[in-house]
């Protein structure tokens, strides 16, 4: 077993500054309370918040080189943004547009105007994109191609995250990867009611839709695979931020809530659960940082780092959200308290971009621990 070069698992000063700015924006915007109000509105995301975050602060273009209209940062900075978005369960299409769609386009030939144009538009936050694959698709396993090319695209893709609210869809088809304008004829984006109220899901139906070819099949496959790997690796940071909020909020609540004449948080049974959860969060931070650093440096260890982070952080976030609901008692079961938004996001994130079980299966191959034969 070879050990990779030492990763940088800490946060740089630039990353700390970026975090402070994003957190301040999200706090000013109302944090989880605003996310709760937003969840009641029948719109895919919060356009004001997205404008401030994506365009105002320039975070939509973090992964895009400056010459292509972006900020020229790395996955490490994008990970910090996602930590804060997880902490606030904000309803913005960062993961789906600024990570998945952007990385897909970066995997195509960016010298072609058909690619560079939409990429620059996504990077400045002026337009929103989505990669049209089912959200549970794990990196490594290519998504089943359900769309046929030709004069126009035809087919159906289910459970596409961020499609509702997107301006452009990146559609893998049998004849390559295509860009489809959501307002074009033959394109139907039908929202489905999602478990996670803060990340819209839709069914995309194409009937001879006009499309622009972005990449031939082989390159398309690689571009999508890379986007899914990046997305899965960075999703771990969203899960980390989410788990941190659940822990901090539960500590705050149990420290102040009295029952049997003492703070609930002074009972050893409660303390031990929260201390164990703290340990989970601390280790989730190490694995999420490791994945972000591997993606940022293009480390040969990236596939292992992402699989470890996803196998670990998906479980930690769900446990944190479940503990948050349980230890809040009755209030945790109410619609008024935002805990349910975190539970719904955590459970949905656990399935997104590969379940922990799928990532463990990937590890079995990557680190040579094969299962029994037959």
């Amino acid at each position, binding site marked *: *077993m*070879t*050990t*990779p070069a*030492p*990763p940088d*698992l*800490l946060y740089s000063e630039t990353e700390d500054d970026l975090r402070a700015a994003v957190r301040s924006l999200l706090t000013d915007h109302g944090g989880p309370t605003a996310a709760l109000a937003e969840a009641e509105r029948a719109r895919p995301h919060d356009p004001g918040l997205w404008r401030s975050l994506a365009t105002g602060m320039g975070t939509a273009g973090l992964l895009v080189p400056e010459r292509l209209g972006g900020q020229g940062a790395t996955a490490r900075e994008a990970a910090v943004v996602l930590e804060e978005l997880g902490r606030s369960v904000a309803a913005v299409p960062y993961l789906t547009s600024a990570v998945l769609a952007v990385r897909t386009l970066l995997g195509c030939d960016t010298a072609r105007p058909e690619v560079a144009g939409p990429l620059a538009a996504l990077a400045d936050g002026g337009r929103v994109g989505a990669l049209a694959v089912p959200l549970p698709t794990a990196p490594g396993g290519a998504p089943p191609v359900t769309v046929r090319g030709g004069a126009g695209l035809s087919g159906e893709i289910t459970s596409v995250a961020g499609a509702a609210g997107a301006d452009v869809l990146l559609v893998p088809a049998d004849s390559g990867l295509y860009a489809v304008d959501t307002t074009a004829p033959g394109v139907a984006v039908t929202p489905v009611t999602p478990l996670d109220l803060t990340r819209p899901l839709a069914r995309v139906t194409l009937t001879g839709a006009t499309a622009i070819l972005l990449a031939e099949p082989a390159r398309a496959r690689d571009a999508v695979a890379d986007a899914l790997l990046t997305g899965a690796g960075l999703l771990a940071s969203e899960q980390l931020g989410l788990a941190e909020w659940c*822990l901090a909020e539960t*500590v705050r609540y*149990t*420290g102040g809530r009295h029952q049997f004449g*003492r*703070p609930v*948080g*002074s*009972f*050893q049974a*409660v*303390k*031990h659960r*929260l*201390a*164990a959860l*703290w*340990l989970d969060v*601390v*280790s*989730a*931070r*190490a*694995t999420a*940082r*490791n994945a972000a650093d591997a993606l940022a440096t293009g480390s040969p260890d990236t596939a292992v780092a992402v699989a*470890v982070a996803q*196998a*670990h952080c998906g479980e930690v976030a769900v446990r944190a959200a479940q503990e948050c609901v349980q230890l809040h008692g009755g209030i945790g079961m109410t619609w008024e308290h935002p805990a349910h938004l975190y539970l719904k996001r955590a459970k949905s994130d656990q399935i997104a971009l590969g379940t922990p079980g799928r990532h*463990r*299966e990937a*590890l*079995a191959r990557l*680190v*040579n*621990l*094969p*299962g*029994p*034969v037959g």
Partner: protein
Amino acid sequence: MDADALRRRVADLLAAHDPATTDRLDFLRARFDAGLAWIHFPEGLGGLGAPRALQQVVDQALEAAGAPDNAPRRIGIGLGMAAPTLLRHGTDAQRRRFLRPLWTGEEVWCQLFSEPGAGSDLAALATRATRDGDGDGKGAGWIVDGQKVWTSQAHLARWGILLARTDPDLPKHRGITYFVCDMTDPGVDVRPLRQITGEAEFNEVFLTGVRIPDTHRLGEVGEGWQVARTTLMNERVAIGGARVPRESGMIRLVADTWRRRPELRTHDLHQRLLRLWVDAEAARLTAERLGRRLALGHPGPEGSGMKLAFARLNQEISGLEVELLAEDGLGYDDWTLTRPELVDFTGRDAGYRYLRAKGNSIEGGTSEVLLNIIAERVLGLPPEPRTDKDAAWKDLPR
């Protein structure tokens, strides 16, 4: 004192004492006297008052020259616990008497803290030290009576750091005094304590009329708990520093067996192995992060957490290993009573690892106590109500 100056001092030491021809102990003494033992200690006490981070410059240069080391794992209690406590709370005379032979390993140290009735609740200890006022020609001192337990290396030790109760009328934390105990005193009786592994790694120590001169008291009378905190804090700092390779320790052993013996594989074991592999990698990365933070001068609370994590991991992995080995897991390598100087997890078989790992969540602070520490000191949760804090020790139920 910078790295270059340190390298020059190492070169001077090597020139005057060629490791190839110098007796091991003579070399170690010379190294101590040159201030190259622990460079952050004061001059004259094995150090140069230099930044601790530069120690590796010295260690690497000496290792490259083939110089002997002081077998740090064998004398870990002295180096890790007694030395920092002597440095912080000892008198000049005590430091000069004890530190040099401690560092060279000529004198092994043990820790006489835990008692049968005082484990996690260490401050409840009952070993008594009473004043021996008139003296016996050796000057004023103390007479100690009691029993200690779980004492590693007591059978090899020349000295022990000892906590004893000097005032039972005070609340339990305030009536304790800290001493250095001469393990060759005729009142000291060390008996092996056999464990579930069959070996006797620890001892019971019976103290009967042990005379300790007042010059071997460390800190003020009644201030022993404060002194002990220095010792205990240093016990848990032992993490960080060296990089740990991926898939090392116990997970490597079970992964190797898995790869070597496909006939043992089942789907259930595969799922559990992969989960533990991920947990082990997560713990490794967490330790790596902690090590970096420590190196940058940001000691984090993760240290207590790492002990918890590794205890759980070692227990689960070794349990899986015995199960994976199936028929072979039913055997055990050797029940003969032995007295190992060090715990060697990888040198014995799976059954030994399974049994010995059970101690990981008990020794050096139980997992339950560590969880309380994290909850209260890291997360800031309110303490449990306590009834023993202000009552006199003699009035506490035992």
